[in-house]
């Protein structure tokens, strides 16, 4: 095997901390499944053996935001739900990324209506938008790979001066 053979032969490798951390980080992106409506079904389909999101190290859907790196907002976000989405996002530890999955989350989609937020980028920093209504699992995997490429380019100094978000956890 390539890596082991190399390691046992020389006993060490040279690299940078940034490269190792970014490599580890991008291959263990734990998603927060924010499945609000029908897109959630395609998100679940992406975890099944046919599409198998585990190939990208993201099979561990964590149902607590405190163990997640990536929020997949899958579904129509109403104004009422927006408060909840943001609250869950705030509870995720830094660094964190967001996928806006599907037409509704990206732009309001077919719900051009008073009660649906016309794009979650009005209150969340979105990294990748996914087209489709709903997007096929392949499309979600493509979004994940785009996120991985983005994470691969990060350096430690990108996160150093980030202020800790004051969480109002006592209220929960």
């Amino acid at each position: 095997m390539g890596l082991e053979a190399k390691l046992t032969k020389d006993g060490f490798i040279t690299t940078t901390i940034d490269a190792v951390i970014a490599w580890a980080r991008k291959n263990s992106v734990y998603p927060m499944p924010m499945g609000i409506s029908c897109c959630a079904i395609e998100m679940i389909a992406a975890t099944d053996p046919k599409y198998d999101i585990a190939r990208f190290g993201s099979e561990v859907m964590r149902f607590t935001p405190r163990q997640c790196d990536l929020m997949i907002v899958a579904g129509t976000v109403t104004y009422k739900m927006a408060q909840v989405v943001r609250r869950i996002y705030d509870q995720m530890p830094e660094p964190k990324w967001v996928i806006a999955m599907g037409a509704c989350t990206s732009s309001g989609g077919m719900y051009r209506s008073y009660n649906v937020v016309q794009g979650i980028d009005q209150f969340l920093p979105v990294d990748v938008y996914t087209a489709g209504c709903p997007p096929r699992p392949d499309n979600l995997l493509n979004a994940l790979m785009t996120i991985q490429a983005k994470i691969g380019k990060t350096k430690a100094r990108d996160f150093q001066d980030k202020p800790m978000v004051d969480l109002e956890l006592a209220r929960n």
Partner: protein
Amino acid sequence: MDTKELIINSVQEKFSKAVEEISDFRNDLSITIAKDKLLDATKFLKEDSNLQFVMCKDVTAIDWATRKNRFTTVYHIYSFKLNFTLRLKVNIEENPPVVESVVSVWASAEWYERETFDMYGIEFLNHPDLRRMYMPEGFEYHPLRKDFPLLGIPGSMPLPEKME
């Protein structure tokens, strides 16, 4: 006597003057009743041994926008005895849009009336818990009224602040 005749005759016999309109459009019987007789009529329809409309399936409203009586509340009620769904209507004016609650007759109407209050701003007197159903607390408008814009009123519902 068939079911419709039975219902029409019993209601007319009891509330001759309060019956404003009876229509039978596409096999759906609807009876419009005067606003002040609503509670009496609902009690009668439920408790009369020949009718027994014991189930309230839906309460909703119509906004006619330009009519003198701007709103109409609509009650869909069902009789297991007759296997029949009857539509009961009450015309109410715009200012104030107030009608008696039928929760005392059909307990199931509680949430239907809350929804109607939320969407049309119709106030139901003697309702035990008249709060909004779908829209957030503190929202000032009633979205299914004809004068409410489709995309809502900007800033009427708060969003979390955008980060960074």
